[in-house]
Protein backbone atom coordinates (compact mmCIF):
# COMPACT_ATOMS: atom_id res chain seq x y z
CA UNK A 1 0.00 0.00 0.00
CA UNK A 2 1.47 3.31 -1.02
CA UNK A 3 1.08 6.18 1.36
CA UNK A 4 0.46 9.75 0.43
CA UNK A 5 2.95 12.33 1.53
CA UNK A 6 2.13 13.85 4.88
CA UNK A 7 -0.32 11.10 5.87
CA UNK A 8 -0.36 10.34 9.58
CA UNK A 9 0.16 6.87 10.97
CA UNK A 10 -1.59 6.27 14.29
CA UNK A 11 0.61 3.34 15.31
CA UNK A 12 3.89 5.14 14.72
CA UNK A 13 2.71 8.30 16.46
CA UNK A 14 1.38 6.46 19.51
CA UNK A 15 4.46 4.31 19.91
CA UNK A 16 6.66 7.39 19.56
CA UNK A 17 4.63 9.28 22.11
CA UNK A 18 5.07 6.44 24.59
CA UNK A 19 8.74 5.77 23.80
CA UNK A 20 10.21 9.29 23.95
CA UNK A 21 10.02 9.80 27.74
CA UNK A 22 11.68 6.43 28.31
CA UNK A 23 14.43 7.20 25.80
CA UNK A 24 15.14 10.51 27.49
CA UNK A 25 15.10 8.91 30.94
CA UNK A 26 17.49 6.21 29.74
CA UNK A 27 19.79 8.88 28.29
CA UNK A 28 19.90 10.70 31.63
CA UNK A 29 20.58 7.36 33.35
CA UNK A 30 23.49 6.66 31.01
CA UNK A 31 25.00 10.10 31.68
CA UNK A 32 24.59 9.95 35.46
CA UNK A 33 25.67 6.32 35.65
CA UNK A 34 28.90 6.94 33.76
CA UNK A 35 30.99 6.89 36.92
CA UNK A 36 29.67 3.58 38.22
CA UNK A 37 29.18 1.45 35.16
CA UNK A 38 29.17 1.53 31.40
CA UNK A 39 28.11 4.87 30.06
CA UNK A 40 29.22 8.46 29.88
CA UNK A 41 28.58 11.82 28.35
CA UNK A 42 29.13 10.99 24.70
CA UNK A 43 26.82 7.97 24.65
CA UNK A 44 24.10 9.58 26.76
CA UNK A 45 24.09 12.72 24.65
CA UNK A 46 23.61 10.76 21.45
CA UNK A 47 20.80 8.70 23.01
CA UNK A 48 19.08 11.90 24.14
CA UNK A 49 19.38 13.40 20.66
CA UNK A 50 17.88 10.24 19.18
CA UNK A 51 14.64 11.09 21.01
CA UNK A 52 14.37 14.33 18.99
CA UNK A 53 15.21 12.47 15.79
CA UNK A 54 12.48 9.92 16.50
CA UNK A 55 9.99 12.72 17.11
CA UNK A 56 10.83 14.40 13.80
CA UNK A 57 10.56 11.10 11.90
CA UNK A 58 7.20 10.24 13.40
CA UNK A 59 5.62 13.71 13.36
CA UNK A 60 7.12 16.60 11.41
CA UNK A 61 10.07 18.92 11.35
CA UNK A 62 8.22 22.06 12.40
CA UNK A 63 6.85 20.35 15.50
CA UNK A 64 10.32 19.18 16.45
CA UNK A 65 11.72 22.68 16.03
CA UNK A 66 8.89 24.02 18.14
CA UNK A 67 9.84 21.73 21.02
CA UNK A 68 13.57 22.36 20.70
CA UNK A 69 13.92 25.90 19.31
CA UNK A 70 16.96 27.09 17.44
CA UNK A 71 17.95 29.60 20.09
CA UNK A 72 17.93 26.92 22.80
CA UNK A 73 19.85 24.57 20.53
CA UNK A 74 22.65 27.06 19.94
CA UNK A 75 22.71 27.98 23.61
CA UNK A 76 22.97 24.37 24.81
CA UNK A 77 25.63 23.42 22.28
CA UNK A 78 28.03 25.96 23.72
CA UNK A 79 26.86 25.67 27.33
CA UNK A 80 28.14 22.14 27.78
CA UNK A 81 31.61 23.19 26.71
CA UNK A 82 31.45 26.16 29.08
CA UNK A 83 30.48 23.83 31.94
CA UNK A 84 33.52 21.68 31.19
CA UNK A 85 35.87 24.66 30.98
CA UNK A 86 34.24 26.27 34.02
CA UNK A 87 34.84 23.20 36.19
CA UNK A 88 38.48 23.41 35.17
CA UNK A 89 38.64 27.10 36.11
CA UNK A 90 36.94 26.42 39.47
CA UNK A 91 39.85 24.15 40.37
CA UNK A 92 42.27 27.04 39.76
CA UNK A 93 40.07 29.56 41.60
CA UNK A 94 39.45 27.47 44.71
CA UNK A 95 43.11 26.53 45.09
CA UNK A 96 44.17 30.15 44.43
CA UNK A 97 46.25 29.16 41.43
CA UNK A 98 48.12 26.32 43.10
CA UNK A 99 46.37 23.41 41.39
CA UNK A 100 46.46 22.55 37.73
CA UNK A 101 43.61 23.25 35.37
CA UNK A 102 40.99 20.45 35.55
CA UNK A 103 42.33 19.09 38.85
CA UNK A 104 38.89 18.37 40.31
CA UNK A 105 40.16 17.41 43.75
CA UNK A 106 40.60 21.02 44.83
CA UNK A 107 36.96 22.01 44.22
CA UNK A 108 35.31 21.80 47.65
CA UNK A 109 32.15 19.82 46.86
CA UNK A 110 32.76 17.62 49.91
CA UNK A 111 35.55 17.34 52.47
CA UNK A 112 37.33 14.42 50.79
CA UNK A 113 39.81 14.91 47.97
CA UNK A 114 38.83 11.69 46.20
CA UNK A 115 35.08 12.33 46.45
CA UNK A 116 35.69 15.77 44.94
CA UNK A 117 37.39 14.13 41.98
CA UNK A 118 34.44 11.78 41.47
CA UNK A 119 31.90 14.63 41.64
CA UNK A 120 33.97 16.81 39.31
CA UNK A 121 34.01 13.95 36.83
CA UNK A 122 30.21 13.69 37.05
CA UNK A 123 29.76 17.40 36.26
CA UNK A 124 32.20 17.16 33.37
CA UNK A 125 30.25 14.21 31.95
CA UNK A 126 27.07 16.28 32.18
CA UNK A 127 28.74 19.06 30.20
CA UNK A 128 29.87 16.61 27.54
CA UNK A 129 26.35 15.13 27.37
CA UNK A 130 24.70 18.53 26.90
CA UNK A 131 27.08 19.54 24.11
CA UNK A 132 26.84 16.22 22.26
CA UNK A 133 23.04 16.20 22.54
CA UNK A 134 22.66 19.74 21.20
CA UNK A 135 25.20 19.32 18.40
CA UNK A 136 23.74 16.00 17.19
CA UNK A 137 20.23 17.46 17.18
CA UNK A 138 21.49 20.60 15.43
CA UNK A 139 23.21 18.64 12.65
CA UNK A 140 20.11 16.49 12.16
CA UNK A 141 17.74 19.45 12.00
CA UNK A 142 20.00 21.28 9.56
CA UNK A 143 20.30 18.28 7.23
CA UNK A 144 16.54 17.64 7.31
CA UNK A 145 15.84 21.28 6.60
CA UNK A 146 18.25 21.27 3.67
CA UNK A 147 16.64 18.20 2.12
CA UNK A 148 13.15 19.66 2.39
CA UNK A 149 14.29 22.92 0.83
CA UNK A 150 15.82 21.03 -2.09
CA UNK A 151 12.61 19.11 -2.72
CA UNK A 152 10.60 22.29 -2.75
CA UNK A 153 12.96 23.81 -5.29
CA UNK A 154 12.69 20.77 -7.54
CA UNK A 155 8.91 20.70 -7.33
CA UNK A 156 8.45 24.42 -7.85
Amino acid at each position, binding site marked *: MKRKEGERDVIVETVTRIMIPFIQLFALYVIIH*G*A*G*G*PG*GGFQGGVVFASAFILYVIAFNLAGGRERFPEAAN*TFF*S*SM*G*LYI*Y*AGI*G*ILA*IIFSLGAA*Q*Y*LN*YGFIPFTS*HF*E*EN*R*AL*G*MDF*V*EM*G*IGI*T*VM*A*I*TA*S*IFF*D*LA*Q*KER*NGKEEEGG
Partner: protein
Amino acid sequence: MNGLRIFTIILIILLCALFIYVAEDIPVFGDRDAPPIKAVTLFTMEVDQVVSFLDQQIVPEKLSKELVKRGFPPPSRIEKITGIGIEWNASILKEEPHYAKEERYYWIKKEGDKVRVSRYAFVVRWIEKGLEETSVPNMVTYGLADYRGYDTLGETTVIFTAGVSVILLLRRRSRL
Protein backbone atom coordinates in the same frame (compact mmCIF):
# COMPACT_ATOMS: atom_id res chain seq x y z
CA MET B 1 22.15 43.59 19.58
CA ASN B 2 25.18 45.77 20.20
CA GLY B 3 25.35 44.68 23.84
CA LEU B 4 25.22 41.04 22.76
CA ARG B 5 28.19 41.59 20.46
CA ILE B 6 30.26 43.16 23.21
CA PHE B 7 29.30 40.29 25.54
CA THR B 8 30.37 37.76 22.92
CA ILE B 9 33.69 39.50 22.34
CA ILE B 10 34.35 39.53 26.09
CA LEU B 11 33.58 35.80 26.28
CA ILE B 12 35.93 35.05 23.40
CA ILE B 13 38.72 37.09 24.99
CA LEU B 14 38.18 35.21 28.26
CA LEU B 15 38.39 31.88 26.42
CA CYS B 16 41.62 32.91 24.70
CA ALA B 17 43.13 33.94 28.03
CA LEU B 18 42.02 30.61 29.50
CA PHE B 19 43.63 28.61 26.70
CA ILE B 20 46.89 30.52 27.06
CA TYR B 21 46.87 29.86 30.81
CA VAL B 22 46.08 26.17 30.29
CA ALA B 23 48.79 25.76 27.69
CA GLU B 24 51.25 27.10 30.24
CA ASP B 25 49.86 24.68 32.81
CA ILE B 26 49.99 21.38 30.90
CA PRO B 27 52.59 19.02 32.37
CA VAL B 28 55.75 18.55 30.36
CA PHE B 29 55.52 15.62 27.99
CA GLY B 30 57.45 12.71 29.39
CA ASP B 31 57.62 14.27 32.84
CA ARG B 32 58.73 11.58 35.28
CA ASP B 33 57.12 13.35 38.22
CA ALA B 34 53.68 13.60 36.62
CA PRO B 35 51.04 12.13 38.96
CA PRO B 36 49.99 9.12 36.85
CA ILE B 37 53.50 7.89 36.13
CA LYS B 38 54.81 7.53 39.67
CA ALA B 39 55.96 4.12 40.72
CA VAL B 40 53.87 1.74 42.82
CA THR B 41 55.80 0.15 45.66
CA LEU B 42 55.20 -3.60 45.88
CA PHE B 43 57.23 -4.76 48.87
CA THR B 44 60.50 -4.40 50.71
CA MET B 45 62.60 -7.46 51.48
CA GLU B 46 65.98 -8.42 52.81
CA VAL B 47 68.38 -10.03 50.36
CA ASP B 48 71.88 -11.29 51.12
CA GLN B 49 74.75 -9.49 49.44
CA VAL B 50 72.80 -6.72 47.78
CA VAL B 51 75.81 -5.19 46.09
CA SER B 52 77.06 -8.45 44.59
CA PHE B 53 73.80 -9.39 42.88
CA LEU B 54 73.54 -5.93 41.46
CA ASP B 55 77.03 -6.27 40.03
CA GLN B 56 76.70 -9.85 38.75
CA GLN B 57 73.31 -9.19 37.14
CA ILE B 58 71.66 -12.34 38.49
CA VAL B 59 68.18 -12.26 39.95
CA PRO B 60 68.24 -13.65 43.50
CA GLU B 61 66.08 -16.74 43.96
CA LYS B 62 64.32 -15.32 47.00
CA LEU B 63 63.21 -12.26 45.07
CA SER B 64 61.92 -14.18 42.09
CA LYS B 65 60.04 -16.65 44.34
CA GLU B 66 58.38 -13.74 46.11
CA LEU B 67 57.30 -12.20 42.81
CA VAL B 68 55.84 -15.46 41.50
CA LYS B 69 54.06 -16.03 44.82
CA ARG B 70 52.34 -12.67 44.43
CA GLY B 71 51.14 -13.56 40.96
CA PHE B 72 53.47 -11.37 38.93
CA PRO B 73 55.30 -12.62 35.83
CA PRO B 74 58.60 -14.33 36.65
CA PRO B 75 61.71 -12.23 36.08
CA SER B 76 64.62 -13.45 34.02
CA ARG B 77 67.33 -10.82 33.82
CA ILE B 78 68.38 -7.79 35.75
CA GLU B 79 69.95 -4.64 34.43
CA LYS B 80 71.96 -2.22 36.47
CA ILE B 81 71.13 1.41 35.97
CA THR B 82 73.80 4.04 36.25
CA GLY B 83 73.57 7.75 35.80
CA ILE B 84 73.24 10.97 37.68
CA GLY B 85 69.89 11.85 39.13
CA ILE B 86 68.26 8.45 38.61
CA GLU B 87 66.22 7.20 41.51
CA TRP B 88 66.66 3.47 40.87
CA ASN B 89 69.57 1.06 41.16
CA ALA B 90 68.38 -1.71 38.84
CA SER B 91 65.43 -2.98 36.82
CA ILE B 92 64.23 -6.54 36.26
CA LEU B 93 62.97 -7.63 32.87
CA LYS B 94 60.45 -10.28 31.95
CA GLU B 95 61.62 -13.05 29.69
CA GLU B 96 61.77 -11.98 26.05
CA PRO B 97 60.01 -8.64 26.27
CA HIS B 98 58.10 -7.52 23.20
CA TYR B 99 58.17 -3.88 24.20
CA ALA B 100 61.34 -3.55 26.15
CA LYS B 101 60.57 -0.20 27.71
CA GLU B 102 57.00 -0.86 28.82
CA GLU B 103 57.63 -4.37 30.09
CA ARG B 104 60.46 -3.28 32.35
CA TYR B 105 58.24 -4.25 35.23
CA TYR B 106 60.22 -4.19 38.41
CA TRP B 107 62.41 -1.40 39.61
CA ILE B 108 64.81 -1.93 42.46
CA LYS B 109 66.09 0.60 44.94
CA LYS B 110 68.79 -0.29 47.42
CA GLU B 111 68.07 0.81 51.00
CA GLY B 112 70.90 -0.41 53.22
CA ASP B 113 70.53 -4.18 53.51
CA LYS B 114 67.05 -4.23 52.04
CA VAL B 115 65.81 -3.75 48.51
CA ARG B 116 62.60 -1.95 47.64
CA VAL B 117 60.82 -3.44 44.64
CA SER B 118 58.46 -1.17 42.70
CA ARG B 119 56.53 -1.28 39.50
CA TYR B 120 56.98 1.65 37.22
CA ALA B 121 54.50 1.66 34.37
CA PHE B 122 51.65 3.90 33.38
CA VAL B 123 49.15 1.10 32.76
CA VAL B 124 49.95 -0.54 36.07
CA ARG B 125 49.31 2.65 37.95
CA TRP B 126 46.11 3.26 35.96
CA ILE B 127 44.70 -0.11 36.96
CA GLU B 128 45.97 -0.47 40.49
CA LYS B 129 45.73 3.05 41.89
CA GLY B 130 42.79 4.53 40.02
CA LEU B 131 40.02 3.51 42.39
CA GLU B 132 41.73 4.74 45.53
CA GLU B 133 42.83 8.01 43.93
CA THR B 134 39.51 9.00 42.36
CA SER B 135 36.92 6.80 44.16
CA VAL B 136 35.30 5.98 40.83
CA PRO B 137 34.96 2.25 40.14
CA ASN B 138 34.79 2.57 36.35
CA MET B 139 38.28 2.37 34.88
CA VAL B 140 37.26 3.90 31.56
CA THR B 141 35.54 6.89 33.15
CA TYR B 142 38.39 7.98 35.39
CA GLY B 143 40.71 7.55 32.46
CA LEU B 144 38.51 9.60 30.19
CA ALA B 145 37.53 12.40 32.50
CA ASP B 146 40.35 12.63 35.03
CA TYR B 147 43.70 11.32 33.86
CA ARG B 148 43.03 12.38 30.29
CA GLY B 149 40.87 15.40 31.03
CA TYR B 150 42.69 17.68 28.61
CA ASP B 151 42.16 15.14 25.85
CA THR B 152 38.41 14.91 26.47
CA LEU B 153 38.10 18.70 26.52
CA GLY B 154 39.70 18.67 23.08
CA GLU B 155 37.34 15.96 21.84
CA THR B 156 34.30 17.92 22.98
CA THR B 157 35.70 20.97 21.21
CA VAL B 158 36.04 18.92 18.03
CA ILE B 159 32.35 17.94 18.20
CA PHE B 160 31.36 21.55 18.89
CA THR B 161 33.42 22.74 15.92
CA ALA B 162 31.79 20.15 13.66
CA GLY B 163 28.32 21.33 14.70
CA VAL B 164 29.16 24.99 14.17
CA SER B 165 30.61 24.17 10.74
CA VAL B 166 27.38 22.44 9.72
CA ILE B 167 25.40 25.45 10.97
CA LEU B 168 27.55 27.84 8.95
CA LEU B 169 27.43 25.73 5.78
CA LEU B 170 23.81 24.61 5.68
CA ARG B 171 21.74 27.37 7.25
CA ARG B 172 20.90 29.88 4.59
CA ARG B 173 19.69 32.65 6.81
CA SER B 174 22.21 35.26 7.85
CA ARG B 175 21.79 34.84 11.61
CA LEU B 176 22.95 31.81 13.54
